[in-house]
C-alpha cells in the first residue's frame, strides 16, 4: 500500500516535470530500437551515442538557460565555429600552447556573447534578429578568414583527447566529462542560487521581476554571456574532435540546440524550461541521427525530422488549449 502510494506520488511528480515528455520519448525509442536493431543496444553503439551527443548537450543546456531567461540565441553555432577557428589558428600559425589558445578562444566567445547582450539590451533590437545578424556576421568572418581553406596542422594528442577521440578510464571521453560538469553545474546553479531564481523570474515576467528588486539587465547580460561561453567550449571541443576547422563548423547547430531545448519543455515566452529536458532532447536528436546511420537512411532525413519535430512539439504544446477552443480563447487581454 505504502509502496504503491509512493510509486503513485513519484509518477505524479515525474509527470509534472517539464522534461517528462522527452524522457518518455527517449525511453520508448530505446525500447523500440533495441528490438528493431541488434546493433543499437551494444555498448559500443551506446558509448558512441553518448560521445556524439555531448557537444549538442552543452549547447542545448545553454539554449535552455537563454530561453528560460526569456531570450533566444541563434548565434551559438557560428560562435562555436569561430572560436574553434581561433584556437586552431593560434596553435597552427603562432605556436601558442594548447591551453593558451583555449583561453583566448573562450575570451572571444565571452566577448561575442557580451556583444549580443549589448545589442539586444541597449540598442533594443529584438533578440532573435540581433543573434540572427550575429550568426551572419560571425560566420561571414570565419569564411573570410579561412578563405575556403580549412585550418589544419594544429592537432595534438592533448587536443584530440579533449575532442573525445580517445577514451579515458571506463570508456568515457573528455567531452562527456566536460558536458557532465557543465550540466550538473547548471542544474545546481538554477536550483540553488539567487541567479537561478532571478533568471526564471526575468524570463517569466520581467516587469514584475524588476519591481521585486531583481536586476533584470544584469540577468539578461549573464544569460547571453553564458550562452556565448558555452558555444565557445563546444567550438574548442569540436576543433579537437574534427582535427580540421572548416568555415562551416557548427553550421545549423543552433537549430538543433533550440529543438532540443523546446523538446525538453522550454517555451519561447520564457520562464519555463529545464536543463535536464534540454539534455534529454539533445540525446533524442543524437539517437535519431544514430538510427539514420544504423539503417543507412538518407542523411537528409535528419534536417527534415528536426524541422517536423519542432512543428509537432509546438503544436502539441498548444493542443490542450486548442481542444478547449470554445471555452478559452487564446486571444489578447480583454
Amino acid at each position: 500500500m505504502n509502496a504503491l502510494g509512493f510509486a503513485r506520488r513519484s509518477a505524479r511528480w515525474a509527470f509534472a516535470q517539464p522534461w517528462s515528455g522527452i524522457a518518455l520519448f527517449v525511453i520508448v525509442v530505446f525500447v523500440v530500437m533495441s528490438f528493431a536493431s541488434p546493433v543499437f543496444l551494444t555498448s559500443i553503439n551506446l558509448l558512441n551515442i553518448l560521445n556524439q551527443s555531448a557537444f549538442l548537450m552543452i549547447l542545448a543546456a545553454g539554449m535552455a538557460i537563454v530561453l528560460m531567461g526569456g531570450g533566444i540565441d541563434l548565434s551559438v553555432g557560428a560562435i562555436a565555429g569561430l572560436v574553434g577557428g581561433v584556437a586552431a589558428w593560434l596553435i597552427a600559425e603562432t605556436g601558442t600552447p594548447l591551453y593558451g589558445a583555449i583561453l583566448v578562444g573562450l575570451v572571444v566567445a565571452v566577448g561575442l556573447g557580451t556583444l549580443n547582450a549589448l545589442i539586444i539590451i541597449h540598442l533594443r533590437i529584438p533578440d532573435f534578429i540581433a543573434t540572427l545578424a550575429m550568426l551572419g556576421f560571425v560566420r561571414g568572418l570565419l569564411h573570410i578568414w579561412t578563405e575556403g581553406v580549412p585550418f589544419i596542422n594544429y592537432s595534438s594528442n592533448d587536443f584530440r583527447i579533449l575532442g573525445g577521440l580517445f577514451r579515458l578510464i571506463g570508456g568515457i571521453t573528455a567531452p562527456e566529462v566536460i558536458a557532465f560538469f557543465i550540466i550538473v553545474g547548471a542544474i545546481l546553479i538554477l536550483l540553488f542560487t539567487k541567479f537561478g531564481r532571478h533568471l526564471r523570474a526575468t524570463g517569466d515576467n520581467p516587469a514584475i521581476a524588476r519591481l521585486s528588486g531583481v536586476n533584470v539587465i544584469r540577468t539578461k547580460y549573464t544569460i547571453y554571456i553564458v550562452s556565448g561561453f558555452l558555444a565557445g567550449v563546444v567550438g574548442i571541443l569540436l576543433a579537437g574532435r574534427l582535427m580540421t576547422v572548416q568555415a562551416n563548423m557548427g553550421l545549423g547547430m543552433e537549430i538543433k540546440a533550440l529543438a532540443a531545448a523546446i523538446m525538453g519543455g522550454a517555451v519561447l515566452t520564457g520562464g519555463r524550461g529545464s536543463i535536464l529536458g534540454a539534455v534529454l532532447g539533445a540525446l533524442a536528436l543524437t539517437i535519431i541521427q544514430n538510427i539514420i546511420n544504423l539503417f543507412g537512411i538518407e542523411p537528409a532525413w535528419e534536417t527534415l525530422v528536426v524541422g517536423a519535430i519542432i512543428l509537432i512539439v509546438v503544436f502539441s504544446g498548444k493542443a490542450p488549449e486548442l481542444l478547449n477552443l470554445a471555452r478559452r480563447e487564446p486571444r489578447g487581454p480583454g
Partner: protein
Amino acid sequence: MRRYLGQAFAADGVAIGLALVIAVLAFSILEPAFWSIDNVLNVIVQSAFIMLLAVGMTFVLTAGGIDLSVGAVMGFSAGVSMYVMGEGYWFGIAILAGLGTGLFFGLLNGFLVARLGLNDFIVTLGSLGVAGGALRLLDSIRPLRLERVVEETEAFTFLAHGKVIGIPVPIIIAVGVVIGLEILLRRSPFGRRVQAVGMQRDAAELAGVNVARIRHTVFIMAGLLAAVAGVLMAARLSSVPARLGLGFELQAIAAAVLGGTSLFGGRGTVVGTALAALLLATLNAGLQISGVDATWYRVILGVGIVAAVAFHQWTVRFSAAQAFGPALARPPPRSDRRSGDEGQKDARGEAGP
C-alpha cells in the same frame, strides 16, 4: 533644418535610394567595368530573387509576423520544379509544381500561425527545417539538373535567360510584382488592413478586420513569392544545389528592414524593399568585381541589419519628438515581439487615470 533632414530620411525609400546611388557611383569609379550594360542587367537579375523573397517578407513583417522559412521554401520549390522537369513533363507542369510547393508551405505556416495561434518564429523555423531537408532528400533521389536540352527545357530556361524587348524576363517579373504589390500595400483595402493588423492587432480586430484571414494571407503570399523566386532560380541555374536557399531568409529580412519596413509591424514599403534588394545585389556584385572576398557580403549583412533596425528606431523616436513634442514620442516598440502569441505578459496597472 535637422527636423526636415530627419523627416526626409524617415520617408520611405529615400535613405536607401541614396545609399544605392552612392554604392553604384563608388563601384563605377573603383571598377569602370562595373558600369557595362551586361553587368548592370546581371546585377538586377541577381537582385530579383532576393527581391521576390523580401517583398513577401515585407508583407509578413508589416502584418506583425515573421517568416524564416522563405529561403528554404524557395530552394525546395526550385528543386521540385527541376525534379518535375527532369521527369520529362511539360514545363508548365514543372512551374505549377514549384508554385504549388510554395503555396503549400504558405498555407501550412499561415494555418499554424494565424488560425491556431502558434508562435510564428518557431513554426517557420520548423518549416525551414522541413523544406530544407526535403530539398536534400529530393537531391539524393536524383541530381536536380537539366540534362537533355530539348524544346521543353528551352521554354523553361527562357524564364530566366530569355529577354522580351531586350529586358530579361526575371526583371520583368520582379518589376511587375513590385509595382503590383506596392499598389496593393499602399492603396488597397487589403494593404490597409495588413498595416492595421501589424500596428495594433486587437484594435484592428475590433474595428472589423478579419485578423486571422489577413495573417493567413500574408504567409501564403510569402510562400508563393518564395516559390516564384525558386522557379526562376531553377530556370537560371539549370541545376539546383542541395543547399539552395540556405541563409536567404536573412537576406530577405535585411532587404525588408533596410528598405524601411518595421520589424515591429504596422509599417512597410515594397518599393523600399526592392531598392534595398538592389543595393544588396550591387554590393555583392561590386565586391566580387573588385576582387574582395564575397563573404564580406555576409558580414556586411549582419552589421547592416542591426544598424538598420537601430536607425529605424532612432528616426521613429526622433521624428515623433520633433513633430509633436517629446511627451508624445512613442516609446520603443515592444522589445519582445513574441509576447503577442503565447500570452500577454506585461506589468499591468501602470495605466494613467
